[in-house]
């Protein structure tokens, strides 16, 4: 169950990318396996994300998309495999309460990787502004004024100027999710992870969030998005990764995977979701 510990930095070139330190992909997953109570649900997935890329991770329910995404941040501990950021292997160990980093290396890694959850997970006892300020001050160590200014800027960025002093419970689902995005962006992440950010929203509210994400993409943010929104995968993603039964079945440029899938599995899945 222990995540194997290797030497960092990794000096072997990364297969397929011809990587050296300068051009290493921002994120690389090597043969990630995840198991729950001895039952393996992700069977060795490898994935490379280049800087500025937007990747949509799609597939049927139970495919292991969330597990894979969460393992990048060590919210799930991979049972085997390696996670590299900028060519450096991350030695993660999430522990306390299943979520809090036990070592400095993971804390540093997590500051680089923003995460947006399906259920938002905003802090309900804090206002929108305070939600965005908190970790800037207490995790990055920014001073309060700087953090507040930055928080206002990020809330404006996601279209929430004027809502700074509202509590999450007083915001619509779409607004809440955008606060969550602002909260993550304020940490200056190199990479953003989204786990079905619109699945718990009504369609018209989902659109607000999708538009925000589209904007982030156009600004060059590197994004890995688990989604059931086929339009987002088609229109916004550069690359689509189709997962089923704990493995990557097909991946490629968005247009190719979405419009001309090669595998039967992807064909069936896409026609099923489109048929709805």
């Amino acid at each position, binding site marked *: 169950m222990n995540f194997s510990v290797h030497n960092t930095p990794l000096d072997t070139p990364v297969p397929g990318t011809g990587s050296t330190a300068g051009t290493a992909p921002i994120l690389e997953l090597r043969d990630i396996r995840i198991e729950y109570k001895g039952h393996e649900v992700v069977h060795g997935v490898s994935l490379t994300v280049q800087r500025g890329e937007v990747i949509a991770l799609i597939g049927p329910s139970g495919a292991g998309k969330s597990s894979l995404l969460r393992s990048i941040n060590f919210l799930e501990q991979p049972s085997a495999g390696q996670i590299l950021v900028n060519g450096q292997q991350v030695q993660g160990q*999430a522990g306390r*309460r299943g979520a*809090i980093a036990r070592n400095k290396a993971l804390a*540093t890694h*997590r500051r680089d990787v923003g995460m947006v959850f399906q259920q938002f997970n905003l802090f309900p006892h804090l206002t929108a502004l305070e939600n965005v300020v*908190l*970790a800037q001050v207490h*995790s990055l160590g920014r001073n309060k004024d700087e953090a507040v200014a930055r928080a206002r800027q990020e809330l404006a960025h996601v279209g929430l100027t004027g809502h700074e002093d509202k509590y999450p419970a007083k915001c619509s689902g779409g607004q809440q999710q955008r606060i969550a995005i602002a909260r993550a962006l304020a*940490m200056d992440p190199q990479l953003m992870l989204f786990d079905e950010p619109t699945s718990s929203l009504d369609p018209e509210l989902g659109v607000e969030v999708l538009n925000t994400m589209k904007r982030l993409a156009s600004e060059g943010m590197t994004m890995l998005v688990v989604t059931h929104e086929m339009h987002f995968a088609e229109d916004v993603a550069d690359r689509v990764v189709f997962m089923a039964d704990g493995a990557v079945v097909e991946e490629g440029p968005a247009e190719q995977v979405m419009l001309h899938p090669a595998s039967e599995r992807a064909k069936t899945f896409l026609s099923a979701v489109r048929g709805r």
Partner: protein
Amino acid sequence: MIESVLAMVPEFIPGLGISLLVTIASLVLGLPLGILLALGSLFAARPLQYTCIGLIELGRGIPGLIMLYLVYFGLPQMGVVMDALPASIIALGLMTGAYTAEIFVAGFRAVPQGQWEACGTLALSYWKSLRLVILPQAIKIVVPPLIGWTIMLFQATSLAYAISVPELMSRAYNYASVTFEYALAFTLAGLMYLAVTLLGLWLFRRVGGRRRSLSAAKVAVPAGA
């Protein structure tokens, strides 16, 4: 009858005052104890953790009256003699510690796992997550059941009658044993308990007790506490 009641009320009021005093003093003693026991049973290393869990179960498992007798008649066996009033406060304070510890633990556990995950992905440390995110939410969850316990505690002060603390019940009994108006005296005392209880319930609803009856106030507090 009206005259009898009018004669009783001024006699009973000071007793009600003592009942309230015992309630508040027991809370002052018991709440910090409850927090310590809760922290111990959640976070302490094994032997201490099990000790705390055991103490909580013990405090909840012993009848209130026995707890009272243990302190009042039991401690003298160890050379600690005290008056009935402080004895009743200590006994009810110990019970408060055990029952509220359970409430605090439940409140802490009721904060969703997603909150921990949000803290984790923002790279907040364990103590900062606890202090800035988890505890403020747990406290909010805990307030209604704590008020529920306070109502129970107030009613439980009537136990102190058994060791002759001059609280409401004792006053009623002493008065009635002179005038033989038992029915009237106990009914009046009962109504005074009821009045304070209803006041507490009103408060409980105002702070957002979800279900609107005493049963909700007592969710975390099994009957017969």
